[in-house]
């Protein structure tokens, strides 16, 4: 059964695309919210499977990408402090600050450790009572239950040598920021599946109705993404705008209630700055006053460091779906994963890094459109043709 599913999925993919062709009558711009979805789309070339005129733009849902440079510099300053053990998820280690990254700090003798779970920090703190253990608590709502548990347990267990450098962001305010911009292009969203596994999706309904945009909570497999895209197109074609759940095998409307309860006990909502985008009101979590003694920003006197992003970088526009990596003159030349200039190149889940990883920087400008499948084959043709037999157009040549 194990290996049959793939082939079945291949058939399903062709059927979903055929159904898109059947229902689609005009161009639509959809945004996938999550970096994990972007990665899956670019890796599998899903955007090239879509009917001509259905465009996917890439959203801000990459927490490593949107962590502001000032916060990264703060993390590095703390990691360089004597007697500090600085703990982080692995994907933060290569993100450059104004002066090097966590790997370079480690190579110069700093005690920087990658953790799999935030709870690992408790073990490290207990094992190293002479050191201050600091955890870089970044993430969207998906990661908030894990990070909240660390703060909660630290207080319960009266661990005194542990703190959190919190840079937590929230999806709904970012969607509102995108939709309320005068130059917004996004007409529908593939919603964040794992964020909603924690939070449910009630909070997306006012956004969907206020801006009249469909929001389809979508998973991360190729079939999930294609199905989510189809559901969104169907709503748009029918003039509907509601929240639907493509990822029902994982989540329901309410999400994970015990997780939400602990998040509310540990964090409160406040303003956050997003790299590439700027400050968004009420768009992040901060530790509640009861947890102030676990707040690394309060414990370590790290001066605000003024930082400046390279002028050439357009990542802010990419994160809002206004432009694509190929629109940037630095993409793949001055800016690459080894020497990232901005938000969307610093993490593998950023749109620019994903485009680079799968060779799209080798295409000429406009190369995103090169391999669009020719529009218009009938549902029957699309369903029976193998991918090799399909006709490719070369629109921009």
């Amino acid at each position, binding site marked *: *059964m*194990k290996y049959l*599913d*793939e082939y079945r*999925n291949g058939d399903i993919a062709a059927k979903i695309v055929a159904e898109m062709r059947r229902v689609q009558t005009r161009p639509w711009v959809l945004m996938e919210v999550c*970096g*994990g979805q972007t*990665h899956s789309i670019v*890796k*599998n070339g899903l955007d090239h499977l879509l009917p001509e005129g259905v465009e996917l733009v890439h959203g801000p*849902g*990459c*927490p*490593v990408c949107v962590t502001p440079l000032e916060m990264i510099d703060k993390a590095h300053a703390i990691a360089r402090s004597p007697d500090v053990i600085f703990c982080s*998820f*692995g*994907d933060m280690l290569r993100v450059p600050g104004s002066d090097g990254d966590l790997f370079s700090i480690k190579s110069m003798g700093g005690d920087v450790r*990658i*953790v*799999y*779970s*935030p*709870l*690992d920090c408790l*073990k490290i703190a*207990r*094992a190293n009572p002479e050191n201050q253990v600091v955890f870089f608590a*970044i*993430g*969207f709502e*998906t*990661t908030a*239950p*894990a990070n909240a*548990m660390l703060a*909660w*347990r630290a207080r*319960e*267990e009266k661990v005194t040598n542990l703190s959190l450098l919190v840079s937590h962001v929230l999806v709904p305010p970012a969607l509102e920021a995108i939709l309320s911009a005068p130059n917004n292009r996004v007409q529908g969203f593939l919603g*964040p599946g*794992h*964020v909603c*596994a*924690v939070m449910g999706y009630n909070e997306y309904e006012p956004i969907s109705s206020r801006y009249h945009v469909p929001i389809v909570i979508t*998973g*991360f*497999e*190729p*079939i999930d993404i294609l199905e989510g895209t189809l559901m969104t197109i169907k709503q748009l074609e029918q003039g509907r705008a509601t929240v639907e759940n493509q990822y029902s*095998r*994982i*989540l329901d409307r309410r999400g*994970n209630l*015990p*997780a939400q*309860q*602990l998040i509310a*006990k540990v964090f409160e909502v406040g303003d956050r700055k997003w790299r590439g985008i700027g400050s968004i009101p009420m768009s992040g979590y901060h530790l509640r006053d009861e947890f102030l003694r676990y707040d690394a920003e309060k414990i370590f006197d790290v001066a605000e460091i003024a930082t400046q992003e390279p002028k050439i970088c357009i990542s802010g526009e990419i994160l809002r779906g206004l432009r694509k990596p190929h629109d940037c003159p630095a993409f793949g030349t001055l800016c690459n994963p080894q020497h990232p200039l901005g938000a969307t190149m610093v*993490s593998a*889940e950023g749109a620019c890094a994903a485009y680079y990883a799968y060779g799209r920087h080798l295409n000429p400008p406009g190369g995103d459109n090169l391999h669009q499948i020719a529009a218009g084959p009938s549902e029957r043709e699309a369903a029976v043709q193998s991918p090799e037999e399909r006709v490719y157009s070369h629109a921009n040549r």
Partner: protein
Amino acid sequence: MCLAIPGKVVDTYDQRGLRMAKVEFGGIVREACLEYVPETQIGEYVLVHVGFAISRIDEAEAERTYQALKELDQLTELESPTVEEMAETGEPASPAWRNGGGLRE
């Protein structure tokens, strides 16, 4: 970053008052916290993100999702190092956060 991986609960136990599990991901066994899916039993599948089960899923679905994720080459998260617990002090485990904080009725 929001990557979550389905795995099978092969053992459950208490660790300092937290409900924990050994979870198997296609041959790799890692520890995961079950506090957010407290009703989970051995043999069931959970969706795990940074060492925490955030959702319960059924077996057929888990296998399918895992195969697809394997294709995506996104299991590197599981390869990060394990932090071993130091020898326990012999003191009784601290009360569970849920008891201490009255999270659940």
